[in-house]
């Protein structure tokens, strides 16, 4: 059975929102770059991804959240993180090129999308993934898990 820990995803979304808002307040492209790298490592599911480490070593260890494992495809969520990483990566480059308005606009798009996912469970990246799957685009191989509603 394919499974995803929803609490891990929510922890990552919360960290993304918090760190990016702090980055904006401190006018820090470095923090934006950190979030982008964290999302990129999460997208590739590496064991030392910062969000994963925080979730396992801090959030779960200190009982801040409980695991909430559900049947789901992990690939759409990883794709969503990849989209976030691209936005933050481009945002970082644009900020370093002194185009602050465009750079922070990209960052705020990520903040809005992360909020939609965190509060409303609307994962824009997952939606994109499944649309690509329906269109038969190579690499987007996992269709939604079927079953009752």
């Amino acid at each position, binding site marked *: 059975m394919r499974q995803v820990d929803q609490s891990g995803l929510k922890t990552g979304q919360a960290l993304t929102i918090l760190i990016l808002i702090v980055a904006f*307040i401190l*006018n820090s492209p470095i923090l934006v770059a950190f979030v982008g790298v964290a999302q990129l490592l999460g997208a590739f599911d590496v064991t030392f991804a910062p969000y994963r480490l925080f979730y396992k070593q801090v959030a779960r260890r200190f009982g801040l959240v409980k695991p909430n494992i*559900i*049947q789901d495809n992990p690939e759409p969520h990883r794709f969503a993180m990849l989209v976030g990483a691209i936005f933050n990566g481009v945002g970082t480059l644009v900020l370093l090129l002194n185009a602050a308005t465009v750079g922070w606009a990209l960052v705020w798009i990520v903040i809005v999308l992360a*909020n939609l996912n965190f*509060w409303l*469970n609307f994962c824009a990246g997952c939606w994109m993934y499944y649309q690509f799957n329906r269109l038969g685009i190579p690499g987007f191989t996992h269709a939604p898990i079927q*079953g*009752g*509603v």
Partner: protein
Amino acid sequence: MIERLLIAAVLLIVGFVIYRLWIARQKGIVNALVCIDPLLCDIKPGIPVIVYFTTPMCIPCRTQQAPTLERLRNEVGVQIVKVDATENPSAADRWGVFSAPTTFVIDGQGTTRAVNHGVADFNTLRMQLQGS
């Protein structure tokens, strides 16, 4: 830095206010629909109802929301109207639903008490029903 803090605060507050206004608008729409909407033709009057929008690709609907609603139906006696938004997109449009799960808590008098976007847990729904 103070300026940026204020900008961030304003943006977050504006986002929150837009969300609350949108919920209020959605409640208004549903209140107007309660007496006439085909989804509610078969409900028993005087008993609270939860209208539950879902889709086949919504995993939390199946694993979290549906069992919660089943438990509410058994323990509280609320009526559940389940709507598959992919089979009935016109209903989703009428009710202003854009994500699943979305639940509308309507009291026995036909007044919408709450709209929940995302999974609503047992205690939240029970409190919303008791508030009605």
